[in-house]
């Protein structure tokens, strides 16, 4: 099965109103060219699930500047003044989620779990409206699974069947978002033939990946 598609084809797989997950941590390990393709298509009323909102000129931050989101779920927005402005002026709903909770909600969404229990956020605004469950005498917050219509991921290298490898700190949220979306599109810096990545080195199994676009060098 050939999973390679063009950026235009990739952008056409995302619809107005979709919830999207985007890999990356401060725009490191983020599918920069897929983001550009979505901006070029002019999609609107999206919900974003991402660790952070990058910068005004890098990562998903460019989509924030293009006002493509009605809701943003992220752990940190402080590096993008436009996200802060949209939040403070009531233009965009922003839900701040502790980073370790966000990744676990995504993991739960992808791996068939009904939620996760964590102490993170107890006694803070994060616990508002959430169930507190006592296990063996200790309180935990119930955090529910998150899923998306589309995940846009980055990989250092993909084979044509979608097996992915990573370099450095680029993996961050990418591996788990690939499990938690109905449709998964990966921007790979390098694409190789099936068999050229050792099974020992695969970080994300190809079964999670629907489509691949060629990212190329910087």
């Amino acid at each position, binding site marked *: 099965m050939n999973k390679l598609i063009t950026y235009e084809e990739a952008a056409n797989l995302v619809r107005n109103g979709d919830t999207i997950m985007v890999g990356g941590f401060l725009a490191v390990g983020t599918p920069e060219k897929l983001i550009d393709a979505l901006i070029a298509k002019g999609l609107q009323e999206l919900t974003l699930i991402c660790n*952070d909102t990058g910068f005004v000129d890098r990562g998903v931050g460019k989509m924030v500047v293009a006002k493509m989101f009605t809701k943003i779920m992220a752990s940190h927005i402080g590096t993008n003044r436009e996200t802060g402005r949209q939040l403070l002026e009531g233009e965009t709903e922003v839900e701040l989620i502790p*980073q*370790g909770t966000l990744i676990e909600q995504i993991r739960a969404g992808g791996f068939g779990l009904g939620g996760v229990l964590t102490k993170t956020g*107890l006694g803070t605004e994060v616990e508002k409206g959430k169930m507190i469950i006592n296990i063996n005498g200790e309180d935990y917050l119930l955090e529910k699974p998150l899923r998306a219509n589309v995940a846009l991921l980055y990989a250092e290298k993909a084979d044509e069947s979608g097996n992915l490898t990573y370099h450095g700190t680029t993996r961050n949220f990418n591996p788990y978002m690939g499990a938690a979306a109905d449709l998964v599109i990966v921007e790979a810096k390098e694409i190789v033939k099936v068999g050229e990545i050792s099974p020992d080195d695969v970080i994300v199994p190809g079964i999670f990946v629907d489509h691949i676009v060629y990212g190329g060098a910087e």
Partner: protein
Amino acid sequence: MMDKQEMQEFIARRVAQELQDGTLVNLGIGLPALVANFVPEGRSVLFQSENGLIGLGPTPADDNIDLSITNAGGKPVTVLPGGCFFNSAISFGIIRGGHVDVTVLGALQVSEKGDIANYMIPGKMVPGMGGAMDLLNGAKKVIVAMEHTAKGAPKLLTECTLPLTAVNAVDLIVTEMGVIEVTYEGFVLTEYNPYFPIEEIKAATGAPLIISSALKQMV
């Protein structure tokens, strides 16, 4: 009088003395990140960066930058021999699971019960908590490294007025004025910077400050 940079380095140098040989440490961005420069000789301390690495090394030379190897501030870094990369689920498993010995963070406010506020000022500045809530809950020891006041306004308080990042989490506070332990009795000053009279340190603290019977000079 110390300028801002001297003050920050003074604080970072003192925090570094708390880091024991063989420990895993997570440093927040800003002032806490400076602590890595002052680890006492002979101590092997591993630094974790929550974006997915253990073995944080020095800042790379300009001609040796790999944009895919970054710290939690998104800045290029190096990895020491024996270091490793991992995804965010593993990274926060390490943090929440109690595998980080010490975390050093900045704060807007700390209460005498160890509550900490450091992620937002409603209506003004809302950067978000990032990994701070997980670190505060999971790390075995929490050290706050910060200036004692915000332009004269106390940051050490009986109760935090800003939204909390975590409850009852802070163990130790290091400022340019002194070292303060958070105890069941409240703030205890264990070390002081002789540049500041004790009365001035008390006045700059918005909660009762117990003076330790073993009080010594900060070095």
